[in-house]
């Protein structure tokens, strides 16, 4: 399975990768994107099976990326990993087609809770 991780923070991408491993999802290909625009391009070029994206990023936000993907007809499974988890944002994410929203700070249990059944 190929997982695309989009976050403008390299450190946070490392932490997400580490948490995936700690949660037991350690045998997957990881592709990194540094903002929403990069993620949008890499969904096209890399054909990931899942996108884990930050919300607040320069150039193109995570929600703009998701909306652009759905407008293009892509149905790639998409979840947010973000420092903001207000009810309004969760509703906006769900309406745009996100499967889940993991709010930072998170741990491996949070990942398991949301990703079991999503990651084979």
């Amino acid at each position, binding site marked *: 399975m190929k997982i695309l991780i989009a976050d*403008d*923070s*390299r*450190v*946070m991408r*490392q*932490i997400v990768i*580490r948490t995936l491993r700690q949660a037991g999802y350690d045998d997957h290909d990881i592709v990194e994107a540094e903002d929403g625009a990069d993620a949008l391009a890499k969904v096209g070029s890399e054909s990931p099976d899942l996108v884990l994206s930050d919300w*607040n*990023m*320069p150039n193109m936000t995570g929600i703009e990326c998701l909306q652009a993907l759905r407008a293009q007809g892509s149905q790639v499974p998409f979840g947010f990993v*973000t*420092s*903001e*988890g*207000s009810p*309004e944002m969760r509703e906006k994410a769900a309406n745009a087609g996100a499967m889940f929203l993991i*709010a*930072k*700070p*998170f*741990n491996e249990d949070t990942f398991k809770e949301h990703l079991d059944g999503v990651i084979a």
Partner: protein
Amino acid sequence: MTSTDTGQRRRLSDSRPVITDLMDEATILSVAEEAWISLVGEEEVLVPLPGDLPGDVLSSWVDVVGPWTGSVVLTTGRATAEALSRALLREAAPEVLELEDIEDAFGEIANVVGGSVKAALPGPSALSLPQVGHAPLVRNPGDVCRVDVLWRGEPLTISVQGALPPLPVSH
């Protein structure tokens, strides 16, 4: 019937909350502790004790814009910011950390702490991208909630501070 302007309506519309109306030090400490456990490590503790910051400090912050507008600012010695960055990166930390790595890691801690502070404030609010450098000035000393902690014995402050000047006092 004539109405008299008592100033009540004007005073109500002019009122805006200061941070101490909305949260206390215990909430900020709790938010910071959760961020530390998640990002820095499960064994990492913040001791709520003040310490003397060194001369060479670095700050990271995010801005919150909404019913309450201000910044969530972390300040610590530059060496402690570097140690924090290494702790976040763990085995991925290079032998020599670039300034970019420190800004990224220290900024991300402010981002996570700021996101949790925002969640505890009345909304809707917007959160900025993190910034690193010299801390924004305190505009209104009455609109600040600050926690002093020690991490691995080194001082660090978390200041949730309003960005707006004080309102004029009515006489």
